[in-house]
């Protein structure tokens, strides 16, 4: 391959790379594509909570309580 041919080939490769990069989807597009959810922290939906509460616990150790 001649020097000229080599230069043309290199130029074509560079052109393909530049144009190809320009046409590739951004990282945001990838995350928001169909079937994919944005990466985020765990979702915070409603939480079931049990609250046990006492008073006068001395009655547990003193039978007169």
């Amino acid at each position: 391959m001649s020097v000229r041919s080599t230069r043309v080939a290199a130029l074509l490769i560079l052109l393909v790379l530049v144009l190809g990069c320009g046409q590739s989807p951004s990282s945001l597009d990838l995350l928001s594509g169909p079937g994919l959810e944005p990466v985020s922290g765990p979702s915070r939906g409603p939480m079931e909570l049990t609250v046990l509460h006492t008073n006068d616990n001395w009655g547990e150790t003193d039978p007169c309580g």
Partner: protein
Amino acid sequence: MQQQREQSEHLLLLDTGDALIEQESSESPTMGEDVVAGMNLMAYDAMAIGPLELGLGAEALRQRLDEAAFPMLSANVLWSDDRTTVGEPFTVLDVGFYRIGVIGLTRVIENGGFADFVFLDPEDVLAELVPEVAEQVDTVVLLTNVPYRSAAELAEAVPGIDLVIAALPRQLPERAARTSGTGALVVTAEQALPLHSGRRVGNLAVAVQSDGTLDEEEWESVALGPEIADDLAMSNLLEKYAE
């Protein structure tokens, strides 16, 4: 407690206070050490300090505060010497993805002879503290030995409280109540009658919404009858103190 912990992914165990001794006196042989040890074993998350705890006196109360593996809370009682709060005013508990602030409030005893302590007005304290705590958490809980109706009135006077856990009702309510204006949920643990102390556990199941508000509440007062088997570790612990 163990059974309930196995059934509930997110559980808080709280005490409204007046827990450590029977009378406002120093008659108790262990000065509440056995009760604190038992509450440590049960992994309490927090407790409000009541007048009976103050009745221990400064020295014994400081010992119990050191021994407790859980925060003992009071926002409205100060040590008379340095004017700092007795215990922490509030604590923040992380439960699941939520932060729950628990404020402790002590029933004020007028002319109670507590030379070691200074009482502050509960409403004034809450008016200042509730907004401060609310900024840090999703849900604000008031844990107090202030009587049930008075505690509900405080939650009506001071907006921002989501749940009141109070004590000393004249008659044990059949269900959780709501304050009419602020909508705070109000529950209580026990009937203040002889032979009732430490014999019931309040059990509140509630949904914490994404904004920290509480709804779908179901509450019952569970009697601790003989049908509930003694826990071996607790029995061994109490035997040690009985010797």
